[in-house]
């Protein structure tokens, strides 16, 4: 009925969200994270040193430029004055030489910056790639517990957004820091060489710039925070209303909803224009300060020229230097913001990478009789998700090969816990579970899980063709085998009615087939996998009862000769089980077969009757 937005929208580094304006998140432990990050980048330290040399080289050549250009203009001016005074001519050769030298300078500078950018892009991309790789491998080593308690969106945003932020920012911030520092020093040296007095003026302008930038940033920050908040509010409201559209209509709430929305929208408007306006002040102010420098240089430079302290070309050079001087300072201000958000992103990624992993068991348990294959034994099993609160107490059960064990109980009774223990998604607190006479903790997890075929209530399929999705159960299966499995799962018929049959592409969330059809596909997948032990976790809960009957017939074939664990909501489906475990509030309260349990007239009997009790509604 309603689709959720896939992810929180990616923060765009587009226009308007200028680096000045966005409030950057702060890392909790900036230093520690920075250390880890530096360590992570450590592999590239030689490349980074080389890049830095290129960057510094490129900057030096660039900084030298205006001064040389100034020389050319001085040469021209002097030649012109000489000509006017009738004392000489313009020296084209000299000017030409200077210009050629300049061309060389600029050429080298361009080349160096380009090589530097080229290498740096490689470094930052491979850092992002490594982060993603580490995360993806980490996912497979983490206990299931983590995924049950953390939202997918959260982990996704670390893989996608945070890693991207780190990559982009590392690239930019390293470059900006190196070039900005080199530029500031270089420009300062050049300016001092031309005129200490004028340099002083340029430096006096700096704190003014700093104060003004600080002022704007400080004030816009507040509005940006507001803006983000109201944007979040309004997005939440939109998602809620659209998803509950039917209910809004059914309860005649259109007007109230619109009114409420208008209220938030108004607030959003206020914060939007204010944040945009105040952060937009930055440009004109910086421009003004720049012009202030321009005018000061023009006037004072002229006076100095007249006194002969400096040359006319120096004014031209100085104007360029003053411009180049404020720019890197602005950039460094941005970088500090950028570093903050990098640290915040890196902190989240590192936190994820540092999460607890599935441990290996180093105990030993004696091997019991090997002759009974597919035999599953629970031996004095104790377990609790939370060590203080045991939910399975001293549970023992012996399941012989080919038996069917059903686990029933009301919603939230912990029925899937048994399965999770069996699959070693969780480890028992004490006691042991044995498969084929071996403690399951002695198996390699992969090896253990190869014993199980599983159909879950949650129908997980991926974007790809139906063929590929069924084949997931056995990657080497031929098309015929896949179709055979689909037939056994009663999926063949509906697949044939789909637009491209087995080649139909399932979309994201597989929403182009119905829930019941999805379930049939997952059953086909499990049938194809053909594992000795079957686990059906409410496998047919989403198909209607007609289909269920048919599937059950297919399953009966599948289950014959196999050990199976069936978790069921509908009791009608498990009447024939060899063993029924009745769970309530996490505890196994009764066990036995259907007849025994009915006779016992306990909780099972109560549950069973209640399913068939009727009221007039």
């Amino acid at each position, binding site marked *: 009925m309603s689709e959720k937005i896939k992810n929180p929208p990616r923060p765009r580094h587009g226009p*308007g969200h200028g680096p000045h304006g966005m409030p950057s998140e702060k890392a909790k432990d900036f230093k520690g994270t920075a250390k880890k990050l530096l360590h992570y980048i450590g592999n590239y330290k030689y490349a980074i040193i080389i890049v830095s040399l290129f960057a510094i080289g490129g900057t030096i050549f660039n900084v030298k430029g205006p001064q040389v250009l100034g020389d050319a203009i001085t040469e021209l001016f002097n030649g012109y004055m000489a000509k006017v005074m009738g004392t000489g001519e313009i020296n084209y050769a000299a000017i030409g030489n200077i210009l050629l030298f300049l061309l060389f300078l600029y050429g080298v500078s361009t080349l160096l910056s380009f090589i530097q950018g080229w290498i740096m892009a490689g470094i930052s991309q491979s850092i992002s790639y490594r982060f993603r790789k580490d995360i993806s491998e980490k996912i497979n080593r983490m206990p299931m517990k983590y995924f049950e308690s953390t939202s997918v969106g959260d982990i996704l945003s670390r893989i996608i957004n945070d890693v991207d932020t780190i990559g982009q920012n590392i690239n930019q911030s390293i470059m900006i820091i190196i070039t900005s520092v080199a530029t500031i020093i270089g420009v300062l040296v050049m300016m001092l060489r031309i005129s200490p007095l004028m340099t002083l003026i340029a430096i006096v302008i700096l704190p003014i710039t700093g104060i003004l930038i600080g002022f704007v940033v400080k004030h816009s920050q507040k509005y940006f925070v507001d803006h983000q908040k109201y944007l979040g509010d309004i997005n939440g409201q939109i998602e809620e209303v659209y998803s509950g559209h039917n209910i809004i*209509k059914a309860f005649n709430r259109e007007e109230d909803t619109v009114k409420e929305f208008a209220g938030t929208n108004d607030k959003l408007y206020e914060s939007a224009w204010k944040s945009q306006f105040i952060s937009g002040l930055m440009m004109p102010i910086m421009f003004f300060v720049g012009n202030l420098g321009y005018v000061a240089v023009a006037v004072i430079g002229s006076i100095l020229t007249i006194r002969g302290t400096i040359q006319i070309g120096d004014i031209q050079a100085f104007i360029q230097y003053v411009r180049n001087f404020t720019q890197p300072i602005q950039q460094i201000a941005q970088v500090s913001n950028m570093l903050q958000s990098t640290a915040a992103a890196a902190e989240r990624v590192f936190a994820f990478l540092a999460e607890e992993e599935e441990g290996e068991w180093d105990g030993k348990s004696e091997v019991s009789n090997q002759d009974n294959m597919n035999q599953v034994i629970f031996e004095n099993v104790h377990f609790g998700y939370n060590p203080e609160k045991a939910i399975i107490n001293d549970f023992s059960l012996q399941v012989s090969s080919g038996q069917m064990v059903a686990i029933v109980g009301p919603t939230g009774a912990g029925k899937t816990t048994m399965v999770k223990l069996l699959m070693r998604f969780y480890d028992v607190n004490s006691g042991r579970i044995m498969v084929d006479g071996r403690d399951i903790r002695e198996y390699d997890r*992969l090896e253990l899980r190869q014993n199980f075929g599983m159909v879950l209530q949650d129908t997980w399929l991926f974007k790809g063709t139906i063929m590929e999705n069924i084949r997931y159960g056995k990657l080497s299966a031929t098309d015929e085998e896949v179709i055979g499995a689909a037939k056994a799962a009663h999926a063949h018929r509906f697949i044939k009615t789909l637009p491209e049959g087995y080649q139909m592409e399932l979309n994201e969330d597989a929403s182009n087939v119905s829930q019941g059809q999805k379930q049939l596909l997952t059953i086909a997948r499990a049938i194809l996998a053909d594992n000795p032990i079957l686990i059906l976790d409410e496998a047919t809960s989403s198909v209607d009862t007609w289909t269920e009957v048919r599937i059950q017939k297919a399953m009966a074939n599948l289950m014959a000769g196999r050990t199976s664990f069936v978790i069921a909501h509908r009791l009608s489906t498990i009447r024939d089980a060899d063993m029924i475990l009745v769970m309530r509030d996490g505890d196994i309260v009764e066990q036995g077969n259907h007849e025994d349990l009915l006779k016992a007239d306990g909780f099972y009997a109560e549950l069973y009757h209640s399913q068939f009790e*009727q009221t007039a509604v």
Partner: protein
Amino acid sequence: MFSIFKHVKGLGLPAVAVIILLVIQAYFELSLPQYMSDIVDIGITQRGVPDSTPLAIAEQEAAGVDFSKTQMRYLLNKGGIMLAFSMIMMSAAILVGFFSARTGASMGMQLRDKVFRKIISFSNAEIDRFSTASLITRSTNDIQQVQMTAIMMLRMIFYAPILGIGGVIKVFGTRTGMGWIIGAAVGAVLILIIILLIIGMPKFKKMPILFDHMNLVSREILTGTNVIRAFGREKYEEKRFDSASTDLMNNQLFVSRVMALMMPLMMFIMNGITLIIVWFGAKGVDLGNLMVGDLMAFITYTMQIIMSFLMLSMISVMLPRALVSAKRVNEILVTEATINDIVNPLDEKVKSAKGDISFENVSFCYPGASDDALTDLSFTACSGETTAIIGSTGCGKSTILNLIPRFYDVTAGRITLDGVDIRDISQSKLRSLIGFVPQKGVLFSGNITSNIKFAGDFITDEQMHDAAMVAQAADFIAEKDDNYESEISQGGTNVSGGQRQRLSIARAIAKQAKIFLFDDSFSALDYKTDIALRKALNKKINDATVIIVAQRINTILHADKIIVLDDGKIVGTGTHKELLKSCEEYCEIANSQLSEKELHTDMNTIITEGGTL
């Protein structure tokens, strides 16, 4: 982008103001180099005396005239004017910022409001057409994108051409004969941009696709951890992830390298142009066509013009994205809701409605679908009775319910309420009579009270408590710290699925409706709760029309009328007993859900057995 402007009011005036201000800003910005030029050519060379020549000045100086005061006055005067110009520029730019921020934000607000109202007015047909997820993106990200672009446009996109044109006028005003250099410079910059775009565009365009793919693969891996582990497919998934990640890396690498090429080359072009200007300018100075200050001014103009082109081209890269967003927003605004009230609704006729719902030869086809979802249905659900609809998944059960509150309109036949076609009644009147409980409990952020009283403030506290009691929600509400004031988060995610369902049932009961529609609403509840709830419900709403869609047969055993639906057609109508005898499909369902014993035992025995619980 542009068709969207007609949906927004009050743009014209601020836009005109902005353009005027931008012209002012550009005028003064372009005047500055002229004054710089004067400072050099007159201030220095001619000692601050206009209308003279350096030679004449030199001769006068030789004759002992002291120009130092004149010169200083001239310099300070020009400097002062430049400062004043800078101030004016800054003020103009700040005002531009003010107007553009307000205009852009107001545009965003108006669009958001219109889109929201529009979508609220949509029937399910339109919602399905766009999909909820798409509507959300359009109302949030797309409008935001349009808003940001509008601000950028006013602030920068307009300025670039104004500055560029002004610069060209100024340059030709200097009569240096070097206009061609500017042409060449702009040409070079444009060619460079076009080449880079041609090289980079395909990869640029691939960017979001690859990000989405990365996202999709990660998402699949994260949501499927248990399946992946159960099948031992960890390595397989790592490979799949790796291939998405590598694709993304390679593409990003290419794009960032293209960008890495762009900036240094731009700088090189700008610097190279300066050299050319100095060289040809030198000739001009030599011939007496221009003065050194003019040359310096010329360099500045050229830079300004190139910069404005650069800015324009940079921004034009983002314009396509905004255009796409605008188009998507516009699509919503031009879509008309297909379900509307008739001009004079016959609300009077159903003023004291009993609530009899009648389907008369109703057929329904989802928009765009080739086959009917419902074919020629006729039945009546009377007040005081329970009508149940049962059938397999996807047979159209829920569709029937959606037709009654007019979420969709029938494609053939008609549905009547007390004999009046529901299309002749206003939607609000019709819906005020209906208590609707959807399949999934949908709650809204607020608290429990606001959710149960969702139908309106006419619901008293007593009625609310009563509704909660019937819906079996009273107990868990009482257990909460703030009882009825307990907060409900967006989508109701802070209460369990079963609790959500019970609250959504309470919400419908509290409405005191005449007609209750339950869309498989009991399946999220465990059996015991389900039974208790239905018992209580039965007492509470015994005079209303109740229509229940169900999959579990035991939910509807005792309904006054059971309609068996298969593939959009009615294949049986009657009571449980009658249907067991007459309807093959019903027997199949019953067989699949009830034991032999239960099927054949007399109903009354079961009731007694159940009653002992």
